[in-house]
């Protein structure tokens, strides 16, 4: 996965605000700034990981890219076409190229439809196959996601969580999309099944030359599958860099805390390092802190951080960070993960 300089998705200053209504006349009294100005690009053939805690806006970002939410402001370019400005019908046709896989394989499949109906639905909606051809294509898709084609007339409840997720993946692949938003596709699955699905994602990417936006809160899985990783906090991207760069050399205090909080399956590890344990909870996105959004929980915050929102700057080539305090470690050297966590 190297030669992918062509940009497939370009997100510019995307904002999604949800209005809050109160009182009898349902007056708008405020808004939840779920996504408040994020910009990034996804290159063809790569996997961009989007991580953050619940409520940070990662799912909303994913949905706004697919235009399941109408963005409040900003642009989403797919091959230089601005999806936000598209009318309904051209956008519908665009969905052939852009698909989504959802988190909950129990809720995202209609329990009254057979596997055949579920996977065939997009094909029928776009008139891509009919009759015998349709069944052939559905079986082909089932084989592609390693499901037994003999199960074509079964219902979702007859499958395990991992198998259901495979059905969801087959449905997303039905139209030969170029880009797939994977919204926490493995969080609802058991550990031994997660590895199966992750391997499937990787195989499919190679076979079909797919581009993924992989949304998750499991940082170790994200590191495994992504080429680049973006970390979100309270509606903004605080840091974005190559997968190894961001894990070895996190520059935003939030990324540092997040990485040090990952449970590592190695008891030795806990004796060696000290954790950065953040105080308190994530503030409400309806009323985010002024200035830097992380300053209320940041161990490095001072008056400067109250003044305004820091610029999302490219601190090192390909390494973006939104923090006043972030510094390039000098002398520039390879800092290992453990050293970095202790540095604080």
């Amino acid at each position: 996965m190297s030669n992918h300089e062509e940009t497939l998705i370009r997100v510019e200053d995307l904002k999604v605000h949800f209005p809050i209504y109160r009182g009898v006349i349902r007056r708008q009294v405020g808004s939840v700034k779920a996504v408040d100005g994020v910009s990034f690009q996804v290159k063809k053939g790569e996997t961009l990981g989007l991580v953050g805690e619940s409520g940070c806006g990662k799912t909303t970002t994913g949905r706004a890219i697919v235009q399941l939410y109408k963005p409040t402001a900003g642009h989403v370019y797919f091959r230089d076409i601005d999806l936000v400005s598209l009318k309904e019908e051209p956008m519908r046709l665009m969905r052939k190229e852009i698909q989504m896989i959802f988190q909950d394989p129990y809720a995202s499949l209609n329990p009254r439809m057979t596997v055949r109906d579920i996977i065939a639905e997009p094909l029928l909606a776009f008139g891509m196959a009919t009759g015998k051809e349709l069944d052939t294509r559905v079986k082909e898709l089932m084989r592609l996601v390693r499901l037994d084609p003999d199960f074509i007339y079964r219902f979702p409840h007859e499958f395990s969580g991992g198998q259901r997720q495979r059905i969801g993946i087959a449905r997303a692949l039905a139209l030969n999309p170029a880009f797939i938003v994977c919204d926490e596709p493995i969080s609802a699955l058991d550990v031994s099944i997660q590895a199966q699905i992750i391997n499937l994602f990787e195989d499919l990417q190679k076979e079909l030359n797919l581009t993924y936006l992989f949304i998750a809160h499991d940082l170790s899985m994200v590191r495994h599958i992504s080429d680049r990783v973006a970390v979100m906090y309270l509606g903004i991207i605080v840091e974005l860099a190559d997968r190894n760069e961001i894990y070895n050399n996190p520059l935003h205090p939030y990324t540092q805390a997040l990485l040090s909080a990952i449970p590592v399956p190695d008891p030795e590890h806990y004796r060696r390092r000290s954790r950065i344990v953040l105080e308190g909870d994530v503030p409400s996105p309806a009323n985010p802190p002024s200035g830097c959004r992380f300053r209320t929980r940041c161990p490095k915050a001072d008056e400067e951080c109250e003044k305004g929102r820091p610029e999302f700057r490219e601190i090192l080539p390909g390494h973006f960070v939104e923090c006043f305090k972030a510094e390039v470690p000098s002398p520039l050297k390879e800092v290992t993960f453990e050293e970095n966590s202790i540095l604080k």
Partner: protein
Amino acid sequence: MTDELLNVQGLETQFNTPEGIVHAVNGVDFTLKEGETLGVVGESGCGKSVTMLSILRLIQQPPGKIVAGQAMFRGKDLLKMSNEEIRHVRGGQISMVFQDPMTSLNPVMTIGKQLAEPLMLHLGLTKEQARDRSIELLEQVGIPRAADRLKDYPHQYSGGMRQRVMIAMALSCAPQILIADEPTTALDVTIQAQIVELVIRLREEVGMAIIWITHDLGVVASVAHRVNVMYGGFIIEDSLIDDLYRNPLHPYTIGLLGSLPQIQSEGRKRLYSIDGMPPMLYKKPHSCPFAPRCKWVVEKCRLVNPPLIEIEEGHRAACWVNTKDGSVRDV
């Protein structure tokens, strides 16, 4: 062994469902020493929660039924106690923290009332004493402005704070055993780290033994002294924490550890995956429950279920095959 706090032998629990009898726990033996933290690891449906709920007799009967076994706690069998006796043990000497802090707190009762309830019931405190103690407890688990927040309802607390309240409640009567059933699973990583840190601190202050049920091998590595791995209603490996990660003996444990991505690794190795899925337990397994997914499987595995035997000192596993050289054990 004098410092043994809890000794469970041959525990079997079944559920009578419309689809047939589910054999959730199929003969589990384990011990818990004083002050020890025992991790119980396994995937959904492996019987880890049912085992602990059975010990406290919190299984709804019917459809559930504890068919065999004993659970000796301070010389008495929890499974044979009268309802009156077991009620004193629950919440008093053995208490439990559940996974979902939203559904395990009563939404129409203030936090203060819910905290005071066990204090008045088990320790016989008066209302005022219970209130003062509640404030202390909330402070101990790190809730700011504790006195003001007693009047709040659970929905006014965040997920992490609710879990802190659950822990405060569980510790309120100074139990000897705290059973924590996936206490951090519903929480975000930074909040999860806070809760783990809190439990470790309280363990040092209070000195109780802990049974920590989880599916997360990472969380267990940070808290447990010893780990039991469960599969198909059996304990299939029992080991001290370091041995388990450095030297797993059961093929399932080996597979589980291999399927985790290494956060430190630069390269991109394909994840090891265990094929197939966990068994449905409609029949009591008479052969090794892991055999259909095991890559070391031999004929014997399909005929006789291996017992949990000590393979190395203090390290037990239920497997016929020596995974290091592929030889078959005869025991």
